[in-house]
């Protein structure tokens, strides 16, 4: 019989090793899954993990990694601060949409003027839009004790309706021949979040994501506010005893995660996407939740996890088109990754021991 024995304190070695072990286990079991589907498992795994980075068309896929990874990391960093404190913002998708609407709206308000200050104003407006949307669950929680999980999640669907409404109305391209969707910001220089180095995929959103990682790292490890965030998550009563004001922490964590999600939406709409349209959002806000946990709520971990997630997305698409793997198989593969991560996570706090099954 196998028993789990609680470690006196969490194992450092395992907390670093579990993500790697989880990726390996995903490869093994994913390979078995692909084999059952009648594909060559080594080829399939190779396509997913190798092709985007070093394959024949890597010059096209590598920039895509940054484009897909940046919003995931940016949103996940914001979410992770709240998750650390036990504040569950599940509605980053909605804040992402609102950031895009506010950012694009601010830019389009100046159309066709050309000026250096338009883009910075859009950045601020995007962050404000996301912040505002996150303040609704934050305020309701502080004032009336509502559950932020439900409120923030419901507001995603409200934001989607708003997106549809502005795509068809307020922000609709007057020269768009009646098609839904805004003017293309890629064709409006002052508002375009262009690549900083052509062909690299590196745009302002990527830079912001990296800054957010550094900022979060310093906040959590070197600042009282970060200490209070961690303390609240680990022992709420001790946090109250230490003098943490829970309401202020809720406003800060939800507000910051909303602002970062809004920024991600703004950089997406003004760059890779270019257009406010009904199908603008593709689920970055939800996937970022997985990224946050995959990265163990640690800023550097999230950076790596965002990259890994982007890799499985792009690799998964390649595997679909080249090997004819069904999309569902790719989703199962991604699900396995999260499952194994959470399962192996147990080893950080417990050790496995073979028990003698005797009765004294």
């Amino acid at each position, binding site marked *: 019989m196998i028993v789990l024995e609680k470690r006196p304190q969490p194992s450092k070695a395992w907390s670093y090793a579990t993500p790697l072990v989880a990726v390996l286990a995903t490869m093994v079991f994913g390979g078995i899954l692909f084999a059952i589907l009648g594909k060559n498992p080594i080829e399939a795994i190779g396509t997913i993990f190798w092709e985007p980075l070093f394959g024949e068309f890597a010059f096209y896929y590598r920039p895509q990694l940054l484009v897909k990874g940046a919003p995931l990391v940016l949103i996940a960093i914001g979410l992770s601060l709240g998750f650390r404190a036990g504040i569950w913002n599940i509605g980053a998708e909605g804040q992402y949409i609102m950031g895009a609407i506010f950012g694009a709206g601010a830019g389009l308000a100046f159309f066709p003027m050309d000026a250096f200050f338009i883009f910075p104003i859009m950045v601020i407006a995007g962050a404000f839009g996301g912040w505002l949307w996150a303040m609704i669950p934050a305020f309701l929680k502080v004032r009336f004790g509502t559950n932020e999980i439900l409120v923030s999640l419901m507001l995603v669907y409200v934001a989607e309706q708003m997106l549809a409404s502005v795509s068809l109305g307020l922000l609709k391209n007057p020269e768009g021949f009646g098609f839904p969707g805004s003017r293309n910001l890629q064709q409006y220089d002052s508002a375009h979040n262009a690549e900083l180095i052509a062909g690299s995929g590196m745009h302002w959103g990527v830079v912001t994501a990296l800054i957010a990682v550094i900022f979060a790292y310093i906040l959590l490890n070197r600042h009282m506010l970060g200490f209070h965030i961690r303390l609240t998550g680990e*022992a709420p009563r001790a946090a109250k005893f230490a*003098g943490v004001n829970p309401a202020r922490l809720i406003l800060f964590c939800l507000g910051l995660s909303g602002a970062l999600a809004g920024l991600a939406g703004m950089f997406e709409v003004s760059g890779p996407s270019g257009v406010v349209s009904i199908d603008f959002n593709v689920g970055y806000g939800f996937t970022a939740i997985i990224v946050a946990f995959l990265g163990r709520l640690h800023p550097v971990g999230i950076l790596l996890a965002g990259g890994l997630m982007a890799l499985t997305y792009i690799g998964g698409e390649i595997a679909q088109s080249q090997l004819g793997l069904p999309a569902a198989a790719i989703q199962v593969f991604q699900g396995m990754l999260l499952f194994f991560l959470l399962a192996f996570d147990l080893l950080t706090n417990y050790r496995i021991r073979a028990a003698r099954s005797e009765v004294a």
Partner: protein
Amino acid sequence: MTTPLLSLQGLTKAYPGVVANDQVSFDIGEGEVHALLGENGAGKSTLVKMIYGLVKPDSGTMLLRGQPFAPPEPRAARADGIAMVFQHFSLFDALNVAENIALGMENPPPMGDLASRIREVSETYGLPLDPYRTVGDLSAGERQRVEIIRCLLQDPKLLIMDEPTSVLTPQEVEILFETLNKLRSEGTSILYISHKLEEIRTLCDHATILRLGKNVGECVPAETSARDMAEMMVGSTLQTPERSGREFGEVALDVSGLSVPSPSEFGTALKNIHMTVRKGEVLGIGGVAGNGQDELLGALSGEILTAADAIKFNGQRIGKLGPTARRKLGVLTAPEERLGHAAAPDMSLTENALLTGSVREGLESNGFLKWAETKSFAEKIISAFDVRTPGPENAARSLSGGNLQKFVIGREVLQNPDILVVNQPTWGVDAAAAAAIRQAILDLAAKGTAVVCISQDLDELMEISDSFAALNEGRLSAPRPTTGLTVDEIGLMMGGAHGMEVAHV
């Protein structure tokens, strides 16, 4: 010689890093009240958990009436006639007595039948209890009755009681003892766990003393002095903390008309509390657990805000200040619950030193943390209070209860408070550590700190406090000088028998 009811032979149980029980053997006779005596951490709980089937021994055997007995789970132990009343009750506040009892049964009878059986049993044993009352409204003594009746419904041969009197007033203890005596006269054996020596001397026929997991001696309590038993428990002569006659200064803490609702639903609201503590004075606050102790500590620490002038510190109104602002002024507190309230379990000792030390020890500047200074503050606590740990980078939960308690108290004492409020400072702490903590509190008072010590250990309060008051249902009795107080007077201050009907056996 007759076969004993239960015979333990060479029971051993080891946990990683500690041997909880080492070759423990003793017998419990039929109809005998057998005391299991020992300090916290001596292995009493592990031993009874083995008898009750919660823990499997590594080696050794048990014989129940001569038959091998190895319960794989509590259900099997109960089927063999072993019942246990735990120190911490497992009752649902929102359900009534009968429902709570039904929840613990294998095949509960219809509610009406159960209620009448509860009435029958409770009256036979002098424990009057209405099966339809909501548990949330019961006093601690009445809740214990629920647990006892739950056991008696199984008609047990051996009743195990783990520290049953820690939640009772002296008057309630007397009622309990009458019930236990009646059970004994009917042939039920009782294994009575306690570290309260006088109780054991009045109640028990036989005592087994455990120290560091080993059986270090047996005695007949009625013929042994309390001091001898204490020294067997501790293994050395006891050192009583020194206190010199002290002069008190001006009033440092002035609480007047303090009333606050409890933050938790089944907590106790504080009602119109008045007290003053002078510089250098130790005010002891006794009372049965759950009578407002947590709420009083919260109100004094700033976790619960009150009317501004309900609490005054050196004349300054501080009722509306939060914990950080009060720490800055010099009002420090140490809550009862070490893990989760006074300290964060999974954080290192360094981080836990920061938890309350940041303001007074200057461990932050402009919000940025000074980890090097914080670490040396943690090291200072560890060395000054003899905290046994490999170093400050270890998680709080890796420390034993006594060591963590020394750390938590030391963290506040070393910050030179003007007022120190402690709740249960030596709960679950071995005798040597308890003596060190009490001495630290007395030393602090000698330097002019006003100390409020909330505790359920009356002996401790008599030992260290200059004046004594008792909390009862959220009300505080008027403080009186400790010298000259009798046990009866203290019992009455604590609320007497809480209007509980006296057992009519």
